[in-house]
């Protein structure tokens, strides 16, 4: 019985976030569809894709974690035969699925469209690096939302996260390994880009892991 609680809580959260996920998928698909139609359309499409994922990240974490706690719906969830550890695991898993599945599908779709169209494949490593950054941003925001009681810390992470994307893109475009290959026909995965992707993933996974451990061991859930 208790073992089956986590999947049930995960399904509950996925149901509650289904429209956010569907909306982001639709927005992402529109953005990706614009990629092959010239430089301006590719720029607009790429920005739309990134914005869609940023919005999905914020809405999923804020509604599933922060708002649930703020609205005292968490009291209802904790009235069920579930431990604090199970509730935390379920929340982290559901929120990650709600973001990672669209992220994965949209990233794969973008790669396929770039590969199949006239868009230079050289842009792919740059795009993936930015998309992985958004994945790390999601896990960091989720981690902060799980450990903090206040709304101001998640709001701070959102502000910093959103602004940082605007700095990351021009910063990456200044890397020789990016601008030299960007318009090339082949995707060149240089070691510095791969290292950055690794650091992004590591930061996100460590942040979420620490948050789950911390929250599971915290004496008071409410």
């Amino acid at each position, binding site marked *: 019985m208790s073992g089956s609680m986590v999947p049930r809580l995960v399904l509950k959260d996925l149901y509650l976030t289904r429209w956010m996920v569907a909306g982001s998928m639709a927005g992402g698909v529109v953005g990706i569809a614009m990629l092959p139609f010239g430089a301006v359309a590719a720029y607009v499409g790429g920005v739309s894709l990134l914005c869609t994922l940023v919005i999905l990240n914020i809405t999923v974490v804020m509604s599933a974690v922060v708002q649930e706690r703020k609205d*005292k719906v968490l009291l209802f969830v904790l*009235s069920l035969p579930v431990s604090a550890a199970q509730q935390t695991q379920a929340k982290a898993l559901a929120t990650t699925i709600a973001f990672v599945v669209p992220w994965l599908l949209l990233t794969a779709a973008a790669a396929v469209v770039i590969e199949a169209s006239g868009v230079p494949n050289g842009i792919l490593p740059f795009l993936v690096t930015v998309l992985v950054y958004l994945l790390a941003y999601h896990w960091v925001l989720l981690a902060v939302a799980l450990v903090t009681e206040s709304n101001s810390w998640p709001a701070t992470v959102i502000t910093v996260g959103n602004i940082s994307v605007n700095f990351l893109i021009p910063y990456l475009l200044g890397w020789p390994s990016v601008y030299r290959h960007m318009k090339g026909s082949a995707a060149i995965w240089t070691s510095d880009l791969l290292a950055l992707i690794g650091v992004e993933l590591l930061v996100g996974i460590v942040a979420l892991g620490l948050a789950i451990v911390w929250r599971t061991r915290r004496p008071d859930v409410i």
Partner: protein
Amino acid sequence: MTEPVIELAGVEKAFPFFRLSDIHLRLEAGQIMGFVGPNGAGKSTTIRLLMGMLRQDRGEIRVLGRSMPRDQAAAKRDIGFVSEDMRLYGGTTLAWHMRFVASVRPDWDPVYADLLLRRFNLHAGQAIKALSHGERVKATLLLALAHRPRLLLLDEPTTGLDPVARHEVLAELMDAVQDERRAILFSSHNTQDVEQISDAITFLDRGRIIESKDKETFLDSWRRVHLELPVSGAAPDLPGAVDTTVSGRTAVITTRTYTPDVHGACERTGAVIRDVQRMTLEEIFVATVMSNRRRQDA
């Protein structure tokens, strides 16, 4: 002797500006205990400790034979919990909540759930965000009752309800406890509700239990004695007196241990008893809290 449904022994929990101290409490199967205290007395903290949502700093908590908060998931299979500030998912319906709770509670009784829907005049298809406060409380109570829990923990469930909704809720609680295996811990600062349904009462103030007895003992032992004093006499020192008010030759003494012996004690000092009044639970509660605070502040 069967194990109590709830047992707290020497429980303490400290927060920066509040401390729950040395809580000892037992609730037996078949009992409805009213947990009465002013705002901020520690009622919600105690109930959240019982639910495993908070971890005590000291002491032992056993609920339905299980140690809390360690075994909270197992214990909560047989607990129904409703809190005045508990909310449901606003974007869904009551029917969705019923299906969800039924999926995680194997003992969910759909026939009883439908009966509660009708008794509470609720509509399963209604959106949660469209429910009034009273309907929301009744909806949470339905979700807590329909798996027929052995223990109901209710944190101020009647706060803010209109008289009709309050009557419906209290009647359902009375009905639920017809099963003698069940028990209810019912917190409130509304002594009328507590007096109506409880058979045991615990008063809590400033994080401490200040009285815990069965209701009849409370009501039988408290009296307000109106006296006419002798010309040069002082008010008699009655056993269990918690408050004495003297005005001229008239005195009113509130005692917590009234027995017919009080009459003899008064007559020996020359005082004449003019009236002996029974007290309501609210009057007893206020007198208990005030005398406890005077003793603490002295």
